[in-house]
């Protein structure tokens, strides 16, 4: 006996997130007012910075690429009932895989290197996720605790490697050598130029296309293969999974390793596409924001794409904002981003009961009218 009617999809995945977003913007507006700036001007600059000119689009989509990867990563684990907050570490270690492949196998031609780099990222990211996954599946150590600890371990490990191993002789900065020019991911504006199209230059590169491909693959995997089915069963009801002969531990490990690999693909964008070397802390919190992206996108690849676009916009527009209005410092932009994450991620269910009640009442009234 349920108290309510099921919400239609357009409310569930459309209206509710928008409502949350609106609230986040209103609260942000109040904060902006409090420091004596005009909220409308801020929104204007934010939107202009994100979409207002050709270059801005490229930057927005470049950020979006990272969020798609980390959002998908979180979603795959989440479908298995796991809260993987280790995307930072997994992406970081994935970056190591990419840079090692590009530096030590630099004799390979680009198309082969592309495949090798993808595999290297996947293997390193998945391996880093495997340890917490194993501990969860076989020893019952909670994945939230272990993945966050593995973020710190990854961070220390990478600092050690960058300072002591990967740093080129004579260099004073803890970063790896540059990746050979022919092994870098081509920028979209270069590809466009090759096709005779003129595009403003931006860091947007081929990895964006790969992110879209991964979105489709994740969708197929989760809803159209028996492994995805098994993962969802484990996530929704582990007891039922055991009853069905689906061994939860096995699929916990599988989901976490796929999640780790997807996180690591972020390194394709950052390391192979933009920085062209391994930098300290190149993950810059994208892994954590991926959690909000996935939650806001209802853990569905299409929703994740939209949410990633929103966050890409906030990142790019936010940069513009702190540049245009000096009183709005970079920290202020982080506050606005934080509010969006808070309302769309952590408090995403705030409006749900009320909206459900309103919709139920409306639905019943309409049905009564139809019956009359």
């Amino acid at each position, binding site marked *: 006996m349920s108290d309510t009617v099921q919400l239609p999809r357009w409310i569930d995945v459309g209206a509710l997130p928008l409502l949350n977003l609106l609230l986040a913007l209103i609260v942000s507006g109040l904060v902006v007012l409090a420091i004596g700036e005009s909220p409308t001007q801020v929104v204007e600059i934010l939107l202009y910075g994100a979409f207002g000119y050709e270059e801005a689009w490229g930057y927005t989509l470049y950020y979006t690429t990272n969020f798609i990867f980390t959002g998908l990563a979180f979603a795959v684990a989440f479908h298995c009932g796991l809260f993987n907050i280790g995307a930072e570490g997994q992406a970081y270690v994935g970056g190591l895989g990419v840079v090692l492949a590009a530096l030590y196998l630099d004799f390979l031609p680009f198309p082969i290197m592309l495949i090798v780099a993808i595999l290297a990222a996947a293997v390193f990211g998945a391996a880093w996720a495997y340890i917490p996954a194993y501990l969860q599946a076989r020893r019952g150590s909670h994945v939230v605790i272990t993945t966050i600890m593995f973020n710190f371990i990854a961070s220390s490990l990478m600092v050690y490697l960058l300072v002591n191993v990967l740093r080129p002789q004579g260099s004073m900065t803890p970063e790896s050598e540059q990746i050979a020019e022919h092994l870098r991911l081509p920028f979209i504006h270069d590809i466009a130029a090759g096709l005779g199209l003129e595009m403003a230059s931006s860091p947007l590169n081929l990895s964006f296309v790969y992110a879209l491909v991964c979105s489709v693959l994740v969708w197929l995997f989760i809803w159209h293969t*028996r492994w995805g089915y098994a993962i969802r069963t484990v996530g929704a009801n582990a007891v039922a999974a*055991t009853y069905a002969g689906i061994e939860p531990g096995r699929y916990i490990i599988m989901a976490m390793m796929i999640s780790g690999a997807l996180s690591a693909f972020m390194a394709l964008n950052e390391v192979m596409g933009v920085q062209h070397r391994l930098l300290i802390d190149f993950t810059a919190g994208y892994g954590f924001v991926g959690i909000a992206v996935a939650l806001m996108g209802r853990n569905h690849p299409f929703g994740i794409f939209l949410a990633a676009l929103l966050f890409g916009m906030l990142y790019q527009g936010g940069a513009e904002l702190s540049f245009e209005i000096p009183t709005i410092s970079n920290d202020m932009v982080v506050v606005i981003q934080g509010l969006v994450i808070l309302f769309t991620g952590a408090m995403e269910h705030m409006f749900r009961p009320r909206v459900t009640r309103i919709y139920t009442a409306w639905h019943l009234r309409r049905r009564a009218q139809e019956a009359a």
Partner: protein
Amino acid sequence: MSDTMHQMHGAGETGAVQPAIELRGIDKRFGAVHANKSIDLKVEKGTIHGIVGENGAGKSTLMSILYGFYQADAGTIHVDGRLCDIKGSEDAIAVGIGMVHQHFMLVEPFTVLENVILGVEGGAILREGVDKAREELRRLEREYSLDVNPDAIVGDLSVGLQQRIEILKALYRGAEILILDEPTGVLTPQEADHLFRILETLKQQGKTVVLITHKLREIMAATDNVSVMRQGEMVAHRKTAETSPEELSELMVGRKVLLRLEKGEAAPAATVLEVDNLCVETSQGVRKVKNASFSVRAGEIVGIAGVSGNGQSELLEALGGIRAVTEGQVLLNGLDVTPGRGVDAAELRKRGVAHVPEDRHRMAMVTSFSAKEAAILGYEDDATYQKGIFLNWHAISDATEHMMSEFDVRPNDPDLKAANFSGGNQQKLVLAREIMRDPELLLVGQPTRGVDIGAIEFIHKRIVAMRDAGKAVLLVSVELDEIMSLADRILVMCDGSIIGEVSAAEANERVLGLMMAGVDPHEAKAAEGSA
């Protein structure tokens, strides 16, 4: 409130007395579900009043409204002729209504006394309240012959005793009207009889009892009046003495129902399942099944009876490959399939073991899945459901539709969320999934728990059809009626051990009940003989 309580004593003799409870036009909707449709009910003072109906008929909703858990959309509640506005359980308690829930609301590590005073400790210093409560508790125990040691730890007491504490709790709070919601679900027949004697005592002391149940036998044995609910409506009121189980069940379902299952003689053939000295332990090392040995042959239904929680669940889960076996051996058609030693649920399924588990929501299905997703659980690797590396949702949808029409699952919509089907339809879908694979052995637990009478009939017939098709069936149920009407042989479990075996012909409630309480089968039969 106390003055109303005093007025009530001795009121039973005068003719013009107000009914203890009167409900007028109670109406309640949950979204699209109309749970109570303008219900009228009168419960006379000093009587035991039964309310029967199938699952989902609205009995529990009605009682929840009376006890203040829900607010009625329309209608009024009168207690002792006075209009009452019951907004919460405190209001209900204040007008003298007490409730004994189906699932006990007790703090197990506390003593009986501590449980009884919980919430009505009276003052900041516990000591005073405790001493007063001890006095009062002694009085109540004497008056209603409810024997319990006030200093016993509740967790150590049997289920029957725990239920008595719930009754004491209600009486301690000054209840004049006691509502019992499915009180016998966890009791042996003997314990249930004892409960009814207690209720009789309460009645003689002038209390009013409302008994909610779906067991007609209990209605006939214990009540003075009975009201029947069907699909949210109150369809009939009867004096118990003037009605019969047949009439009541017909009123409950709305059509004639076969109470006794018609089935032919079993024709047992070769042994399919052989269980030898099986032991199962929980992860904490508590031994739940102790050296169980038995066999099930093709073409027979073997029933396992027992009070819930005596190891039958663990036994069934072990045989289904969900729980590892710590000792002993399981043979299927002579081959070793002992679960936990390289054999899991998936492997057993491949070898022809179908399993309908006891707990539908926790185990048999994922309620957030659609019906077609639920219909392949455990068979998702099956070749007919694959197209390359992908699942063939087209084929799955067709197969689900076939299952649904074959087992009369309504509505026949493979895309509907499993949670949106009624209990009976969910169970029929699970049965369809397991039975339509034509397994060698069917393990089935509580096949009709939370299922309406119409569906029960259907499910029982399908299980008997399995047997008649020469399959082996192992049935676990805590409903004695179900075991007795379905099984050809009955094993009784108590405290993890199989106490003994009774053939269906010589089984009756008393013998089974004694065995369920741990009495040796020979003594049980002897006791029966002398009785």
